[in-house]
């Protein structure tokens, strides 16, 4: 028994999705982040994507750790449950929640500190399990909430607001995820909604772990001259390598894509995404080569963005690996779980 959320009193002229819901109904509490924080733009993109995909709000589960970025799960889809857990441990919460009910849409929002420092181990193992969730890193190169320390994604040579320079090499979540065999790896920029929204939609439809590393400048602690994670620097050095188009079930693929240049990928539920190369020698289907190419470009200070790697076929998602049934475990009738007194008697016979 599911429900369609009751429209809040909404302006009649506001556009509605197939569920008859307006964008407003995919929004959440008012953001308490700094004015101009990149994270808020990502929140807006998530709202847009969920609305366009017409997800049932109550089927959206929002998970996060601790940080400014992790707070944002309160700012979208107020009709869905949220769990703001502890610092760096969101992946394990997501794993348990997903194990309990595979039918929901799991959106994890984390920060570069939350994911790449304290949470690095859980992040890598969630990828290994190919947990079916969308995992967004709101990457600003600093610990925002604790006032601007360098995070593990800070680039060599980047300057802190107080002037200090970072010399430690960064951990790049995209390369890390590709090395670990992630089945969906994207990179984007909070300022590029055109690129971000289809990526999020594709990620939500992906049957497995979908990582999107989103550069999301921290206006308060890391948007200054000399920072490599500022709006200005990001705009200059981030290069779309792959253009992603999301094709809803209902829409036919129109023929006006030049053959060859575009690669259609069929998602789990039949929806399709179309990938169009913007960087000729980049092939998102060849994981190792693609990773090498990304690193090559990095050495020249260019960060490729887009859906950098996707593998909808060969990888098995968490529940497939565990051979769990299609119906959720959390509502499995008790009769299916207990062998009863007769069963017990049989079992005990082995202990006499």
């Amino acid at each position, binding site marked *: 028994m*599911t*429900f369609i*959320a*009751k429209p809040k009193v909404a302006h009649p002229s506001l556009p509605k999705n197939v569920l008859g819901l307006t964008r407003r109904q995919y929004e959440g509490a008012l953001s308490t982040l700094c004015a101009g924080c990149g994270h808020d733009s990502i929140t807006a993109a998530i709202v847009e994507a969920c609305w366009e995909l017409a997800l*049932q*709000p*109550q*089927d959206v*589960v929002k998970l996060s750790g601790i940080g400014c970025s992790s707070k944002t*799960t*309160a700012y979208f889809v*107020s*009709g*869905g*449950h*949220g*769990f*703001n*857990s*502890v610092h760096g*441990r969101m*992946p*394990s*919460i*997501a*794993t*348990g*929640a*997903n*194990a*309990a*009910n595979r*039918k*929901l849409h799991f959106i994890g929002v984390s920060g570069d500190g939350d994911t790449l420092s304290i949470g690095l*181990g*859980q992040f890598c*193992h969630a990828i290994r*399990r190919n947990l079916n969730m969308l995992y967004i890193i709101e990457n600003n190169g600093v610990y925002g909430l604790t006032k601007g320390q360098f995070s593990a994604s800070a680039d060599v040579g980047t300057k802190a607001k107080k002037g200090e320079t970072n010399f430690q090499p960064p951990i790049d979540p995209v390369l890390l995820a590709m090395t670990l065999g992630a089945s969906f790896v994207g990179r984007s920029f909070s300022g590029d909604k055109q690129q971000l929204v289809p990526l999020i939609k594709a990620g939500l439809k992906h049957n497995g772990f979908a990582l999107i590393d989103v550069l999301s400048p921290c206006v308060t602690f890391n948007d200054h001259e000399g920072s490599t994670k500022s709006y200005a620097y990001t705009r200059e050095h981030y290069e779309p390598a792959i253009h992603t188009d999301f094709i809803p079930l209902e829409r036919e693929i129109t023929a006006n894509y030049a053959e060859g240049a575009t690669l259609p990928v069929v998602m789990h539920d039949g929806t399709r995404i179309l990938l169009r190369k913007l960087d000729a020698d980049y092939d998102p289907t060849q994981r190792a080569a693609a990773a090498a190419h990304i690193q090559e470009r990095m050495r020249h200070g260019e960060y490729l963005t887009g859906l950098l790697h996707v593998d909808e076929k060969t990888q098995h998602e968490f*529940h497939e690996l*565990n*051979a*769990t*049934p299609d119906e959720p*475990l*959390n*509502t*499995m009738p*008790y009769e*299916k*779980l*207990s*062998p*009863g*007194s007769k*069963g*017990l008697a049989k*079992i*005990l016979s082995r*202990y*006499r």
Partner: protein
Amino acid sequence: MSSPRINDFAIKIATVNGTGSASANSLLMKSIFRSGIPVMGKNYFPSNIQGLPTWYEIRVSKDAYVARSGRVDIMVAMNAETYARDVKEVAPGGYLIYDSTWPRPALLKREDITVIGVPLARLCNENFNGVRTRILMKNICYAGVLAALLDLDAERIRELLAETYARKPQLVESNMKAIQLGYDYAREHFECPLPLRVQPLDRTAGHIMIDGNTAAALGCMFAGATVAAWYPITPSTSVMDAFKSFCDRSRVDPQTGRKNFAFIQAEDELAAIGMVIGAAWNGARSFTATSGPGISLMNEFLGLAYYAEVPAVVFDIQRVGPSTGMPTRTQQCDVMECAYASHGDTRHVCLYPSNPEECFYMAAQAFDLAERLQTPVLILSDLDIGMNDWMCRDLQWDDGYRPDRGKVLGAAQIEQLERFYRYLDRDGDGVAARTLPGVHPKGAYFARGSGHSQYGTYTEDSTEYQIVVDRLMRKWDTAKKLVPKPVVDGAAGSDVGIVSFGSCDGAVREAMDVLAASGVKVDYMRVRAFPFGQEVERFLADHERVFVVEQNRDAQLRSLLTLETAVEKSKLRSLLHYSGLPISSSFIVEGVLAEVSPRPQEQKRDAAHG
């Protein structure tokens, strides 16, 4: 030579781990058990995989005493490395069996014991081929020797072998052959049976031999747990192994092969408890099993579950601490850590099973409590209960049982609400209703470990914060009424009482009989859960002097009683056993007599805890 002692003696077998003595030992155990004679087996093994000393103790007790007796009547010394101390351990008038292939007169000069030499190695070398086989068979062979000396039924042994190796019949023969070798040799060379011997009884009908971890796993399956997440650690691992194999048998759809449970080996204990919390928050019955180090690592998450009010079931199979400690020895040393795990004002419901039977029932109970109270429930077992073979009554299951999910609102109920407030106490019992994702948009709420009001909103307001943490104390009072009550034996009507818990139970009950025999009568309360209810208060109030018996250095149960009941600690005397071996009745008897008899008071280790 002492007069016959029927069905009342202890055998200790000293071997080297990884040499297959385990099967010989369980063979002996079971054949005694099937003769209707109460028997107990305890394994003292090293924290490595192969080649170090290991001991197995079998206590035959017509009175069904399950504790370590603290004396060894027959020592089977198969490990040259430990001969010396093994010989020392034999009680005067006892017997020593050793491999006389290499005679050891030097080591064996004890007049007060009978030495029985059997050339086990020679016998096996003459009759078997292959190094490995010969080593294995040597260990089966001593079982044959004991069978003859103790007058065990050879047929029963064959029958057991047949069951054990149902799939490998050739092994039945080779093993039986080894048994026979030992059996015949003993009959030829010694007068069998010994005065110490077994004689069939009818005291084991309606009982099983099972270890606590297996029983706990059964309880989890019958409770309807569907998500199990864990990280391997001795001595808890077999809880999960057993759960998996039970579910692989009972929970797999014969058509589709789909499994009605998720079994997740986590990357560490932080992840394991996180998965349990995530699953429980999303409405699945979930649990994990670990030991001390794992509990330490779960501290942060346990605080989250307490404050965000998420059910969770955690088994702590305690081992010797601190730190890595002695992973294959037993203690009850995580009592305080579990009761107050995590920073800030936190407190957790704990259950204290005393044997495998109770592990089974408490496992099921733990899930009901966790969901009714929306909080973690920790089950404190230990290595002795969890990994040793205990004789206990047949486990029963009421087919009328249905999981108590506590206050979980369904779609219809949510629909009727004006608005849903996650942390609002509508019933005055301190428990607020919760909702699950995917059910109804109006039921959505935001769970968090940061400050929140009773309406579920984020807060930094003093009053709003206090309303919630004060309600948690009301919920705690509710817990006192729901948790298992203590088991009280007030028969003696004495003003002296013993309070204990968990695996001490057998030793305490045996000690009470011994004390009674020597004219000292005491009452007994076995605490089964934290928080403590009225019954615990009453027993403490009703006794002038109370001995608190526990297996740790720092008197942790006594501490908990001191803090969480009205008792004045001056009347609580500690008897602390923390050697890593299971507590024996004699330790308790001596401890009590040291104070209750006219003898001068001994200083016990707990002085520091005044």
